[in-house]
């Protein structure tokens, strides 16, 4: 190796494995609300994070805890329900008996890939330099009567590659929590608007 190649080789040696994030469907939609404000003051909210797919039971619990904190910070009264629980609407449980909104989260891995710099059957085993994962989360928001108010698929892609700096976690958190808050707010306003139909009107 000549001396001229030394800077490039040094840069490669100093580079680490960093994660790059790309928002796909849903996560790339703009967010109009400020999640730092009390957007859900006095709103009762039930959260369900369903294990299976991309989430173990423990991960689903962690997700619900984090999302619950997100809405609590915006003034909501949050109740986290475990996925397997069968509810009797007449039996008052912990938290509000009738939630204004019920949010259900379900995640799955769409694609997982390990890329290699070299070809061959043992390539990934010898030197897999780049891994890629695409994750999709289904969000369903229902009203107190079970009416589906909002539904969206949030998809994000994460690629591991050689690099020096990564802000993937911050960018994903901003997109994910922002979009989730926006979906819930849109659902709550839709619920309020439909509730204004006091009389049957035309049709």
């Amino acid at each position, binding site marked *: *190796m000549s001396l001229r190649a030394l800077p490039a080789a040094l840069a490669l040696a100093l580079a680490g494995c960093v994660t790059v994030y790309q928002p*796909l469907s849903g996560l790339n939609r*703009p*967010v109009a609300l400020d999640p730092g404000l009390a957007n859900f003051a006095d709103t009762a909210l039930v959260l369900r994070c369903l294990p299976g797919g991309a989430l173990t039971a423990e991960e689903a619990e962690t997700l619900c805890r984090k999302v619950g904190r997100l809405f609590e910070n915006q003034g909501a009264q949050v109740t986290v329900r475990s996925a397997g629980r069968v509810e009797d609407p007449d039996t008052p449980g912990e938290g509000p008996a009738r939630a204004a909104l019920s949010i259900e989260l379900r995640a799955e891995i769409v694609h997982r*890939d390990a*890329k290699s710099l070299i070809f061959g059957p043992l390539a990934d085993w010898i030197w897999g330099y780049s891994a890629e994962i695409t994750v999709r989360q289904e969000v369903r928001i229902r009203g107190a009567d079970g009416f589906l108010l909002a539904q969206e698929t949030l998809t994000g*892609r994460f690629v591991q590659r050689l690099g020096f700096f990564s802000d993937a976690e911050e960018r994903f958190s901003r997109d994910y929590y922002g979009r989730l808050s926006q979906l819930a707010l849109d659902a709550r306003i839709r619920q*309020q*608007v439909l509730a204004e139909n006091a009389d049957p009107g*035309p049709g």
Partner: protein
Amino acid sequence: MEFWLYVLLFFMPSLIEEANDPIGAILPSEIDPADLECEPISTEAARILAPGQVPEPSARGDFIERRAVICRERLMARGERPPRDDAILSTLNATAAELTGLVAALDGPLAGRTWLVEVYHPDPRVSLKVAFAMKNALLDRGLAVSDRAPTLAAGDVEVIGRTEPARAWPLACARYAATGSVGSGDALMGVALRDRRETQLHVGVCADGRWRWLR
């Protein structure tokens, strides 16, 4: 020199694979990845949308796992317009199709009426675009559409302007009917943004002096 030849031969397959990747590429893309809207699609759908770009599977078996992600460059770069308006306008075609679908479902009781469209959005420029899209979508569904805007007397506007939004639309509807602005042969499709923080449009119908929200 030998070093670069080694790099070229050794890394070429991966470099070729990544050349078209908006975020994985070694060389930065001309387009900011934030201004791309990408969505994973099936390879079958990709072959229809972009013929020739995704190779057909070999008759003797395809041992390469192929997948496709379709990317479209955003019409307006991020930050060019307020996020709320960006969210509404970037999906306006789909929203217009959805909202006019709800209106067209009232075809039984309101069949044969001429539709007027009124849009409320804080930005009049957005209102104009939304109204234009809604009228086009109504025409696409074979409904009769008028460009006429329903009008109210100055006194009505003053009272309705001070009324809370939940009561303003039914009140305006009743006044439209009383003044004949929305007559018995007409129906009004009202499209509104009800909260400045939301990124969706609501739709309601005014006919015979009665107002009803559809979404």
